[in-house]
Every structure is written in C-alpha cells, then in structure tokens.
C-alpha cells in the first residue's frame, strides 16, 4: 500500500525550475530519507506533501502528488484538513510562546476539540511517544522556552504527533542539535515509524543510514536514485550517488 505517490512533479519558484520530473512512491509506515547537497530541492520536495510551498509567492507546480490515492493539489482540497493528517517537524525547534502543555494541545485546539480530559490524555500520550513525558510532567505549565534545544525539538515532535497524523515530515530535525539529542531524536523516529509514515530530509548520511528503510538521493532538482537504504549506501547504481555518499562532493 502506497502512502504517498508523486507523478511527474515539476516545481518552479518564479522562473527557477526547482524540481524536475520527479516520480516516487513511499509505502505505508516506512521511514524514507531524502539526501543530497544543499539547494538540491529535497526540502522543497518534502514541503510539497503538506502544501507548505503554497505560502511562497510565485510558486507553481505541475504533475500530481497523491496521498492515500487522493491528489492533494486538486481543486476543492481543504488544505487545513490535509495538514491535519500530515504533520511536520522543522529544522530548528520552533515551539510557540506558550506553556509546554499548550504547545502540544495546540493542534487539537485549533481543530475544534474542546473536551478537556481528552486533550489532557492526548497530550500525555504525545509527550510519552516523544520520550519527553518523564522530563516535563511536573512542569507542563511552564514556558516551552525553558526547555533545552533537544527537549524543544522533541516537544515539536510531540506537538505534531498529538493530532495523530498518518504522515510525519521532518526537515533536518536534528541539524541544530547536539549529538546526544540527535541520538534521542533518531531513536524516536524508529519508534514512531510503527504508527506513521515518516519522510525525513537530512544532511547527515549516517543519519539516513541509521534511521531509514529507503533513501532518495537528490541532485540539482532531480531525483537521481531511489531505493533500499542498504543498497544506496553499499551499492548505488549511479555514479553521482556513489560520489556523494563517499564524500567526494556536497
């Protein structure tokens, strides 16, 4: 069962051709990593899945992006509903200027859930699944900014998980964190993959190798190679991939 499917996707920022004819299928409940040098289009591609690029003036897309068989760029698609099902974690921790509890409850509240007991239960579940519950359970009322960077990032993961998305997009989630926090996030990705499909953009090839089942290598707006992570890292088909993973460029 394919969760996400992209067909002949071309994407432009104004006149800049950022993504060129990309086709990919992402299976349910797997972790897929996008790797590639800076500016290769991997983040742009990731942000197509929850229509985050809609916010950029002059952005244009041709081709189809399907989630659960539904074209998300079709007319009449409710973007808010789409984004409820497709969570996102960003490069830098970006908690809201609210308490820890309210940060996690935010997604539930904006989607109209008022039942306090339900929210409390969901917040606890989300924080537990983000391996943060034990660290914050006594200070839920405190500001999210009181947490360390790594804790903040896990809070952002909990925030995304609280609405129980079927897809979780992660845009270099550990690039601003120290090694210990990074290890925690990676552990978390493995655990969460049982509940949700995860697409992760990363700069670190080791990270891609550690957490993902499948890896796609992007270069200059094209998807050069896509396959089982093991195969990409041990026996890539294309020379560009080989050069990149062996550190000859990028």
């Amino acid at each position, binding site marked *: 069962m394919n969760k996400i499917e992209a067909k002949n996707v071309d994407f432009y920022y104004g006149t800049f051709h950022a993504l060129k004819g990309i086709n990919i299928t992402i299976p349910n409940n797997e972790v897929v990593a996008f790797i590639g040098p800076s500016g290769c289009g991997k983040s742009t591609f990731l942000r197509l899945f*929850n229509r*985050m690029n809609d*916010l950029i*003036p002059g952005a244009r897309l041709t081709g189809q992006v399907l989630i659960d068989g539904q074209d998300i760029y079709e007319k009449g698609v409710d973007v*808010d*509903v789409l*984004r*409820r099902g*497709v*969570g*996102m974690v*960003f*490069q*830098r921790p*970006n908690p*809201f*200027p*609210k308490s820890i509890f309210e940060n996690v409850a*935010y*997604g539930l*509240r*904006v*989607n109209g859930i008022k039942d306090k007991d339900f929210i409390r239960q969901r917040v606890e579940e989300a924080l537990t699944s983000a391996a943060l519950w034990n660290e914050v359970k006594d200070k839920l009322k405190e*500001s999210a*900014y009181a947490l360390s960077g790594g804790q903040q990032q896990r809070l*952002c993961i909990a*925030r*995304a998980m609280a*609405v129980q998305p079927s897809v979780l997009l992660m845009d270099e989630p550990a690039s601003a964190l120290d090694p210990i926090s990074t290890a925690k996030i990676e552990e978390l990705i493995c655990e969460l993959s049982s509940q949700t499909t995860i697409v992760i953009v990363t700069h670190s090839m080791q990270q891609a190798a550690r957490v993902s089942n499948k890896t796609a290598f992007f270069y200059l707006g094209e998807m050069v190679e896509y396959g089982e992570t093991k195969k990409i890292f041990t026996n890539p088909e294309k020379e560009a991939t080989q050069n990149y993973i062996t550190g000859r460029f990028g």
Partner: protein
Amino acid sequence: MKKWIDRIARRIFTLSGFVTSVVILLIIGFLFSEAAGLFRQPIVEEGYVLALNKENDVDRLSAEQIKQLFDEDITNWKELGGKDMPVKVFRLEDLDHLYTEEELGAEYEHAGEKIAEQVRQTPGIIAFVPKVLVEGERDIHLVPDHTIPIKDVLLGTEWYPTATPSPIFGILPLLSGTLWVSFFAILIALPFGLAISIYLAEVAPPAVSKVLKPVIELLNGIPSVVYGFFGLAVIVPLLQQTFNLPVGESGLAGSLVLALMALPTIITVSEDAMRNCPRTMREASLALGATHWQTIYKVVVPYSVSGITSGVVLGIGRAVGETMAVLMVTGNAAVIPTSILEPLRTIPATIAAELGEAPAGGAHYQSLFLLGVILFFITLIINSCVEIVSARNKTKR
C-alpha cells in the same frame, strides 16, 4: 596613531553621554524645584492680608473658603464656624467710594487708618488689602496666613489659578481630563490600530502594503496643529450634530484627534513586531491544520505582544503629552468630566495656555511646573509598565 584615534573617540563619546545626562538631570531638578516652590507660597496673594473685625474669631481660612467669601457664596460667618453675622466683603477699590481723595491723602497716606476704621465699624467685614497699609493699625484682626497645603493641590477639585484674593490650584480636573481623554483615545485607537497592523502584516498583498505603509508613516510627520485644525473643522461640528451638543468641543473630539495621531505609531510598531514573528513559527501552526486566522491570533499576536505593547504605549505617550491638537478641540473647561461629551482640559493644554499669562516666580507659574512634574510621573509610570511587561515576556521566551 590608531590608538590615539581610538582614545579620542572614546573620550568624545564619554563626554557627550555625560553632558547629556547631566543636562537632563538639571532639567528635571529645575522642574522639581520650581514645582516645590508652590507649597511655600502663601494662600493669599503675596503682599496682601485679610483683615477682620476684632470681634470675629475665625482664625484659619482655606483658599476655597476665601474664594467663596469673595464670590459671596458664603454670606454668613456662621457657615465657617464663626459668629452669626452677615459677611461684608471689602476690597481696596471700595475705599474710593467711601472717602474723598482728600481724606485718603494724595499718596494714600491715610488709607491705612480709614481701612482700620471700616474694619472696626463693621463686625462682619473681611477686607482684602495691601499688607503695608494696615500693618501698624491696632484693634483689627489680621487672618494669619499659611502656605498652600499639598493636600488641597493634589486632591483639590477646582482650578482657579487667577482668582483673587486667593487662587485655587486643585489639579484633579486637569488630571482626570488628561486621563479621560487618553483613555478614550486608546480605546478607539487600539482596535483599529491592531486591525490595520494585522491586515498590513498578514493579509494585505505585498503590493498594497508596500504603498500603504509609507502612507501611514507619513501621517506621523503631520504637525499636531494640523490635526487640531482638522479636528476643529471636521470632527467638532460633526460631533455637535450627531450628539446634538451645545458645543462640539469635547473630550470625545480630543480623543478622536488623539486616536488619529496615535494610530500611525501603533500601526507601524506593531506591524514591525508581527513581521518579526519567525516564519517557521507561522509554518508550525499552519502545519498543524490551523487556519490563517487561528495562526494570527493564537501564534503571531501572542509572539509579538511585547512589540504591540510598546507600540500602544508609545501611542499613549503621545496622547498623554499631546498639547496643541487637544488644546484646540477639547473646549478647555477645567472641570472634572462626568461624560466624554463634555468640554474638558488636559495638563499639557493648561501649561501651554496659561504659562504666557503667569508671572514668573509666582504661585501660578509654580503650579504650572507642578503640572509638568505630574505629567512627568504619568509618563514615567507608563514607561515602567512597558519595561515590566516586556521583561516578563522575555523571561517567558
């Protein structure tokens, strides 16, 4: 060589900083010392005394009582706790009606005697006369003078700075006028300012905000007298018609003009604050399925709340200290306002209007400095509030 330039530059900066600070402190010191002088002024105009008949045992009169006596609002000494006798007001001019020039003498040398004579003859008399004339006279009762009490100034409900024989400096009408006008100005300006800044920062297409923002900033540069003129020509008649008022000059007219003047500040500062809200913060909210509007009021506005507060406070600061426009449209009646549709008078307008006619060093002059001090404290309090609010927001972050 480089080192020398470095040292000289540092000296210059230190010196200019030091000089500026000292000058500011001197100004504040001057303000305070002039204002404090008011409380050393006698109640009755300097050089004059109030003379009573010997029979009359009233010994202390407040400025307000004196004013009521001379306005003939108090007509019997009973009302002041004295004996039951009618009040007879006597001023220096009355002397000319009672006596011929010869009797008084060419140089008024007999005036003192004649005054004393009148005072002795009339049991209920109160005479307001120059001190030099009656100093030597016996058998009259001079009311002992005292200095203006602080309480009467700070809690006084009447402002008659030019009343004779004793001016009244109750600042409450002016203070309440200022606060009242500013309060309504902010009440009007805040929702509009916030709405416009949200529109500019979040909703408007870039082309629109590119044009609109400089236009709004331009409004900041219009001199306040022009706003006052506009208020006088447009807002005042409009209010008079809509609310069917006897006069259109009212607190509301002042508030509207001030709101208009505070708007550009509120808009530009809070719009900047909202634009400074990081994009990822917005995206995080949208990525959770929040609508644009939910993102604005649940994330963008709370994030920029300290910027918005400082915009609002700068706006209030302008409203509280604004002089000219308010002077032109509020009607300047120094009474404690009971509704916003009445004429009222603010502290800065009072200073501007009265400083020209107050003799330097006199009680009136000093009372205007006192008003300045009070204005200073109002803005000080407002600024401290901002500091506290933004400091609290910073620790939250």
